[in-house]
């Protein structure tokens, strides 16, 4: 990235020169190599033990899976924008565009604009790609409300850094194409042009040199399928409103940054979803994740889950996940995890996971 922008700035003249005086051959090839985007790949292998309860007709996952390879292409496009493209390929060879967006990062008035397919800023966890989370699964509440892959769609997002002298504040307004209810059960496209509107306000504050906190509140409003009236053959779009609150606390002593750190994140969701026949389902859920790094290469953590379903609040599921993770280097991790879930029908599910991920390519930014 450090080299690419100046190269682009310098290289843009070369591109114009080539257009006016085409020069086939090695020179053009070399310029092309210099201007290549940063290319990285994250691989995710996983083994699973235990009896997973799956709905009738759904296939149980294999004991060992190549969950996915996520290919990342990132580059500055021009002096005004950068682009990020993430393509995932799962173990069966299914290719999916995870994200692909253009990000204008220095518009006037501290504004930023993003357009393309992306994971919207509803809470903090939704932005994290599955291989990069600490877990072998996703929190139950996210699975129930946003589906197995998380909330993601095509749209545009405007963000504003609110200038103030006290803390870092950001406001986001995002509009995306409403996903199908099979992808994100809280919502559901009723018509082709249905849009999902998302707003978020977040603030970051340094409590001390070592500790900091992020607080966020999110809201989403969109279609949740449609209701047909057999009498007059009319249809009515059902609506869903989702409220979210998130808190992230981090601790890391800068004097011992590579050895000790702590992380605590909690997200709570509350949903009001039209259920047809003038009835509304009000449901809620949350997860809380605590992680402690106790040595340079070791981390241990746990997660508590409690959630209802956006379509049915008669029962709830709750459970927890514990893990210990070993990182041989910055670019690889091996994590042993155990999860237990009490299902809404009162039965229990106990699963064990071995998650292995690796990262190849240029050194990326450390996640924050």
């Amino acid at each position, binding site marked *: 990235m*450090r080299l690419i922008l*100046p190269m682009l700035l310098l290289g843009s003249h070369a591109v114009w020169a080539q257009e006016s005086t085409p020069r086939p051959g090695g020179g053009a090839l070399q310029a092309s190599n210099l201007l290549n985007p940063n290319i990285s790949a994250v691989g995710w292998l996983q083994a699973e033990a235990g009896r997973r309860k799956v709905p009738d007709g759904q296939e149980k996952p294999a004991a060992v899976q190549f969950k996915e390879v996520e290919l990342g292409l990132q580059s500055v496009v021009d002096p005004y924008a950068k682009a990020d493209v993430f393509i995932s390929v799962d173990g069966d060879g299914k290719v999916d565009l995870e994200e692909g967006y253009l990000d204008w990062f220095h*518009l006037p008035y501290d504004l930023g604009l993003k357009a393309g397919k992306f994971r919207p800023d509803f809470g903090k966890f939704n932005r994290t790609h599955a291989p990069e989370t600490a877990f072998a699964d996703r929190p139950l509440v996210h699975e129930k409300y946003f589906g197995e892959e998380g909330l993601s769609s095509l749209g545009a997002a405007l963000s504003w850094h609110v200038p103030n002298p006290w803390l870092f504040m950001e406001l986001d307004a995002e509009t995306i194409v409403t996903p199908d209810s099979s992808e994100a059960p809280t919502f559901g496209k009723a018509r082709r042009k249905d849009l999902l509107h998302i707003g978020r306000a977040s603030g*970051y504050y340094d409590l001390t040199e070592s500790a900091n906190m992020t607080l966020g509140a999110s809201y989403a409003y969109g279609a949740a399928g449609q209701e047909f009236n057999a009498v007059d053959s009319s249809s009515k779009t059902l609506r869903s409103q989702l409220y979210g609150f998130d808190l992230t606390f981090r601790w890391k002593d*800068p*004097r011992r*940054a590579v*050895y000790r750190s702590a992380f605590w994140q909690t997200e709570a969701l509350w949903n009001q979803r039209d259920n047809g026949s003038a009835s509304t389902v009000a449901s809620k859920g949350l997860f809380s994740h605590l992680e402690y790094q106790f040595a340079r290469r070791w981390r241990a953590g746990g997660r508590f889950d409690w959630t209802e379903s956006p379509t049915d609040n008669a029962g709830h599921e709750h459970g927890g996940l514990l893990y210990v993770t070993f990182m041989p280097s910055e670019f690889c991790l091996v994590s042993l995890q155990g999860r237990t879930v009490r299902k809404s029908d009162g039965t229990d599910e106990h699963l064990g996971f071995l998650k292995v991920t690796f990262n190849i390519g240029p050194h990326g930014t450390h996640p924050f």
Partner: protein
Amino acid sequence: MTIRRVLASFLLLCLTASPIMAKLQVVTTTEDLAALAREVGGDRIDVVSIAKGYQDPHFVEAKPSYLLRLKKADLFIQVGLELEVGWAPSLLTSARNERILPGNAGFLDASEGCDILQKASGGVDRSMGDVHPLGNPHFWLDPGNGLAIARSIARKLTEFEPDHAQSYQDNLARFESRLAEKEKEWAALVSPIKGMKVVTYHNSWPNFAKHFGLDVVDFIEPKPGIPASPAHVRSLVAKIKAEKVSVLLVEPYFDPKLPEKIARETGAKLVVFTPSVGGRGEIKTYFDLFDAGLKLLTDSLQGGR
């Protein structure tokens, strides 16, 4: 009504939260660069460093609070050679400050014009650890490179304020002259330790060793960013004994337990050696950095092995 007034006051504050600054606002990635900028900029600039001197500059968190400083910056100075690759690029693109983006007038890579060692030749991959293919980024530990950085900063500040070019040139000349005096002082100080064999924790000291005549025999971490295995520790202990290594140099942000164990087994002296201004309270300037470091080294020699 009261709520409206509060909201109106808040919006007014937001819109006027960026007052016109008389002084140039400089943000550096490390305190060494900040110290050099202060030497050249004097009281015409306000300087703030993102990383503290007691912090490992490879592992700084890209906190959003840093964006508040970067938004106002006229000039951003980084060490470069991918030392800050894990955090600076995301801060720069998130700051929404066009001035300080790479390639623009407010961006300075301090490695330009410096004597860079250990540039990768041939293939580079992660089997070599977290390597820096463009060269070793700890180059500010050579006073000659300190002068080169100061010259780059003076040039940059002059571009911003041509009317004050003379002021910056005078400050640079004063720094250069003081550095020349200090170099003589340091040369006398290090003459007893020329050729001293040392083992360092991380590969942070090639420029320092070259300039002051130390012989870096090996490292406690076998490869950059890779913790030592028991086998590496065993072979290192044997090597330290065989080659009669006098001193283990350890940066203050590394856990001293393993170096202490190696020191106990080999009889080598453990010296916690700060590679940056601000690493200890009394190291406030670029000159203090070498004064303190060389004193530690010469003191360590006096006690013998």
